[in-house]
């Protein structure tokens, strides 16, 4: 490989590395912005919003990533300033834990109550009664089968 070729190869590798690093940061900004609620709008994430504060938040996320902060540290940065409501999926602890588990608990209790109610009304029976056929019944079945 000529010297010129080697130089172009090295420059190419360097440029490719720069582009993929920038793309990686962009993706991580989008991921983290998707986890945060837009402070000024309703039902939108920071990623989806073009409101001034959301734009600033995205820029701040980028700065914090460039400073080497982890996703957890960045989310904590915003929780400390805005409170836990800034997270679109609040942490599973305290009152939030109750909110997370309540639908499941309600469903479980409802199923248990329904089961108990139906059992009381004898709509569900645990034992199916069986008895042997009488001779007359057996003969009738045999005759029917022969005719078929």
């Amino acid at each position, binding site marked *: 490989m000529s010297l010129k070729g080697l130089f172009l190869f090295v420059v190419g590798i360097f440029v490719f590395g720069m582009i993929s690093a920038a793309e990686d940061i962009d993706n991580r900004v989008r991921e983290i912005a998707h986890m945060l609620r837009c402070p000024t709008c309703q039902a939108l994430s920071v990623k989806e919003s073009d409101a001034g504060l959301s734009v600033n938040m995205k820029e701040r996320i980028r*700065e914090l990533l460039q400073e080497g902060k982890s996703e957890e540290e960045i989310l904590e940065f915003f929780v400390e300033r805005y409170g836990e409501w800034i997270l679109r999926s609040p942490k599973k602890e305290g009152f939030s834990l109750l909110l997370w588990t309540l639908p499941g608990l309600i469903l479980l209790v409802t199923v248990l109550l329904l089961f108990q109610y139906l059992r009381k009304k004898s709509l569900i029976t645990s034992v199916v009664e069986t008895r042997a056929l009488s001779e007359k019944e057996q003969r009738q079945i045999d005759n029917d089968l022969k005719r078929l």
Partner: protein
Amino acid sequence: MKRKPYFLLGIFVTAGLVLILIYGLFYASRPGEIPSAQISQKAKPFQATTFDGQTISLQQFRGQPVILNFWASWCVACRREAHIIEAAYQKYGVKGAVFIGIAINDTREASLGFIRRYGKTYLLAPDNKTGTISLDYGVTAVPETFLIDKNGIISEKVLGAITKLKIDRFLLNQL
């Protein structure tokens, strides 16, 4: 008699669901109305350069009550409160209260036009391009005002145009 526990459980579950529904519809859906996470906490220090070139920092006003207002020239409610804040500054500034206005998401020209139009004379500075100060204070919209006591603790956050009564009540306690 056996029905009573089920009846109570039913009421409990229904009441829980209704409370969650109310919370979701009228409280959690308006993020700006959720109380600031920074109430009763130390105000975050910041530095800014005023529109007339003066460098200010929050720490230099330790021992004085601070009215920290976030505003923008494009904000309608900011026009409504502009003369209220200026009048309060004229009344309480000489007694030691500090008034700081931080313009966010605004152009320098538009901010200066707003300042001239409404005759604002207290400390007015733009936030930086990425809104460092407003994000540090968890600002959700403009106008938003933080009442910081003499010890540097955030006493209250006011969302929307601040009233004369709010400023009077806070500063009469502080001065």
